[in-house]
């Protein structure tokens, strides 16, 4: 693929991320696909972080391996990203040009693969303003020049980003222009990027979930802030007025999920969300929704655990927690979008599933998926709200929990005439009356359990077919879930290019697993499960469901997979010889 990767490195508070966003927007406005990566610490100031943007005229599915242009905002960044033994969780060292302030940074480690392009960033910036962040704009100008991209679209993006600040915008445009010109005057275009006239939409996974929620008719959101779930809350907070959404930060996550249950019970589509630690506090509420059969959508954005863990890093370590949330056996549906477009689509699906089957539905995301920016594909704003079976007013002998074949019973919401009934966290009969209030009836208990569980059987019958990638005649099969999809697909493309028959099963409906998966598991030389965690949580599910031997590739350093790193691991597994454990219970 013809792509370009740009990385901006600096300390927290240096404006790394806003510079990155301007660049991302500029690429997008030039009709290019983008995918970004944000490496940062749980720090307000200081430390070392960076932001990477990959862009191409073809679909870009991940942050990419390799590095073409580095903007180093301090010496540490310059040394760090030009070091062959770079220790940033799989990111590549620079093999391209470095743009940095040659006046300020003079004493750095030289690397032969790097073309050093110093630009007097600070000197240029100071001509316009004392704001130390202005030098970033100068560097961005130089970067745009190095890629042979026209200045005008870029200038418009700057104006837009600074628009609230009036003349500051022009200041920035002029400084950028001088950076642009300086590069043109002193160096030549490093890698020409072809721009295209077409409309591209790019968003973060958090915004996509938020937008999906609005599209699905969501009207209320309850939460308590927690990275990386907060970006969804933030989307709703800033769009509350526009989309008429009631957003409430409650005193804790327990309150949030209970309020969300109350609101859905009363008939208004409502979501709640948190990250792993806050979600742990919600788990009792999950069982409540399941028992009372109140539709509920919960957004669970993962970060590395256990406990507080790494608040600004990524991992897929919460699947066990989500599947195990709440005591007892009960039906639940877990969705795990594989990219940002999927995050939008599955959020829409989540609401209809929750309302159709009257159970808790989870959207599992992770910090990488929630916070990076990617071009949206196939966005369809059409949506039919399916609120599932509802009782008619004054319906006779109304049974809220009628034992039906599908397990689904008609809902009734407060305000409906003649349908007054009780919804109970205690085990209850078809009417909602508590089983153990007078004489416990073991039979009714059994029937109630089965009734609830039948909904999952019904759901499985109606599940969309499992998503696959280049599965044709594959000898080797990758199984992945969630945000590793982009890296996996790229590795498959490359290996197919090397004549290795490999394909993937991409699980975005992760619990319960679709039985159709077993069709793809047959006659494989190897099944390799790829997860961004240590223990292989999907792997365990797959094994228990399909009794298969698998290989496992895990990553648990807090970063997402990089395609080259993953390719190495997969090649390693393909070439590995090993004894398979053979135990059969036959």
């Amino acid at each position, binding site marked *: 693929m013809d792509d370009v990767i740009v990385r901006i490195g600096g300390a927290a508070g240096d404006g790394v991320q806003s510079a990155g966003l301007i660049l991302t927007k500029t690429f997008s*406005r030039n009709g290019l696909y983008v995918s970004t990566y944000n490496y940062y610490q749980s720090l307000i100031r200081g430390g070392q972080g960076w932001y990477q943007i990959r862009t191409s005229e073809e679909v870009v599915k991940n942050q990419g391996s390799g590095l073409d242009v580095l903007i180093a905002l301090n010496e540490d960044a310059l040394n760090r990203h030009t070091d062959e033994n770079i220790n940033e969780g799989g990111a590549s060292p620079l093999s391209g040009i470095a743009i940095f302030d040659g006046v300020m940074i003079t004493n750095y480690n030289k690397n032969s693969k790097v073309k050093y392009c110093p630009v007097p960033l600070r000197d240029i910036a100071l001509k316009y303003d004392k704001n130390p962040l202005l030098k970033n704009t100068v560097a961005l100008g130089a970067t745009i020049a190095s890629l042979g991209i026209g200045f005008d679209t870029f200038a418009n993006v700057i104006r837009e980003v600074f628009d609230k600040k009036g003349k500051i915008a022009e200041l920035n445009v002029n400084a950028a222009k001088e950076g642009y010109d300086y590069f043109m005057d002193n160096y030549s275009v490093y890698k020409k990027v072809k721009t295209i006239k077409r*409309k*591209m*939409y*790019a968003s973060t996974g958090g915004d996509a979930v938020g*937008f999906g929620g*609005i*599209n699905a*008719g969501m*009207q*209320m959101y*309850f939460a308590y802030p927690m990275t990386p779930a907060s970006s969804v809350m933030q989307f709703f907070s800033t769009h*509350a*007025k*526009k989309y*008429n*959404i*009631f957003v*409430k930060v*409650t*005193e*804790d996550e*327990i*309150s*949030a999920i*209970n*309020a*969300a*249950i*109350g*609101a*859905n*019970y*009363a*008939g*208004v589509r*409502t979501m709640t969300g948190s990250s792993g630690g806050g979600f742990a506090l919600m788990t*009792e*509420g999950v069982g*409540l929704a399941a028992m009372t059969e109140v539709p509920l959508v919960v957004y669970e954005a993962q970060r590395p655990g256990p406990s507080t863990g790494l608040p600004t890093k990524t991992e897929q370590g919460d699947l066990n927690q989500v599947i195990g949330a709440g005591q007892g056996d009960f039906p639940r549906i877990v969705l795990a979008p594989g990219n940002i477009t999927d995050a939008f689509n599955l959020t829409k699906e989540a609401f209809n599933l929750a309302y159709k089957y009257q159970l808790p539905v989870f959207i599992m995301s992770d910090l990488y998926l929630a916070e990076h920016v990617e071009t*949206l594909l196939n*966005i369809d*704003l059409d949506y039919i709200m399916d609120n599932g079976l509802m009782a008619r007013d004054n319906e006779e002998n109304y049974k809220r929990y009628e034992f039906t074949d599908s397990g689904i019973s008609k809902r009734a919401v*407060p*305000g409906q*005439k*003649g*349908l*007054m*009934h*009780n*919804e*109970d*966290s*205690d085990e209850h009969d078809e009417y*909602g*009356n*508590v089983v153990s*209030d*007078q004489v416990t009836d073991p039979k009714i208990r059994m029937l109630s359990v089965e009734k609830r569980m039948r909904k999952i059987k019904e759901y499985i019958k109606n599940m969309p077919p499992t998503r696959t990638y280049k599965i044709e005649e594959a000898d080797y099969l990758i199984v992945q879930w969630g945000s590793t999809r982009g890296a996996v697909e790229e590795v498959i493309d490359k290996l197919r290019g090397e004549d290795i028959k490999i394909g993937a099963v991409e699980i975005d409906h992760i619990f319960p697993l679709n039985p159709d998966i077993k069709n793809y598991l047959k006659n494989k030389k190897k099944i390799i499960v790829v997860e961004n965690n240590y223990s292989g949580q999907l792997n365990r599910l797959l094994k228990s469901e399909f009794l298969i031997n698998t290989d496992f590739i895990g990553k648990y350093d807090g970063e997402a997979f990089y395609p080259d790193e993953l390719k190495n691991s997969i090649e390693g597994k393909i070439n590995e010889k090993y004894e398979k454990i053979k135990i059969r219970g036959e």
Partner: protein
Amino acid sequence: MESYKGKVAPDWCPGCGNFAQLRAISAALAELNIEPENAVITSGIGCSSNMPEFINAYGYHGLHGRLVPVAAGIKWANPDLTVIGYGGDGDGYFEGTQHLYHFAKRNVDITYMVSDNQVFGLTTGQASPTTPIGRITKNTPDGNIEPPFNPLQYVLTAGASFVARGFSGDIKTLTEITKEAIKHKGFSFIDVLSPCPTYNKFNGYDFYRKTFYRLEGNNKEDFFEAYKHASEWGDQPHSIPTGIFYEVNKTRYEDADEVLSKGSLKKTAPYKLTEDDMAEFY
């Protein structure tokens, strides 16, 4: 009141205070001409919390300690409903401590009544947050040493706009208080002195009949007067005040919020996205 009678007969022990609250709530709703379909009773877990089953209205019997956020979620979704939360002292003053405070502070327009029997009834007699010092209970064989929780001072400090205390042995007043609480626009709180003849042999009808009195002529808008009345307690006649301690007009959360104040979300169609709304992703 008959229209509020549920299909399931209450299973409380004979003499349990909850019977009185059941009557008071049913009577108040009936007298205020609220249709059963527009009333929601939501509760926690405890003997008291079994209430919703016994009333012919919409009932949501949720988790121990969590009825207040459920009630608020319902009210915020559909302001046309009369939402009444009902639970025990363990439920509200232990497990649900934080919710009571913050939702009272927010002044959400719900009515919250606590059956305060100074004991964990359903779990068979452990000390509750309102159990007096020295009291022998199942889990305090040598007497409770934890200072009791003062519910009225708690919600007053939180900023509740309606604060009252009732007594199961005085159903008439309890009904009146309940009616006022439901009518009040904002967070209405009623702590009810509710005998538990099974696990609390000390604070029964006799005890309260002797010690309680009805607040009269108190200035309901005087915070400190209310706060001081709330500290009265004892085993002598005229020791324990009941009635409305405090009632003021205060902005409800629903009125302060830009979205909720525009009208019932239940009645409002969700926003329909168009291509134009995608501009921000461009």
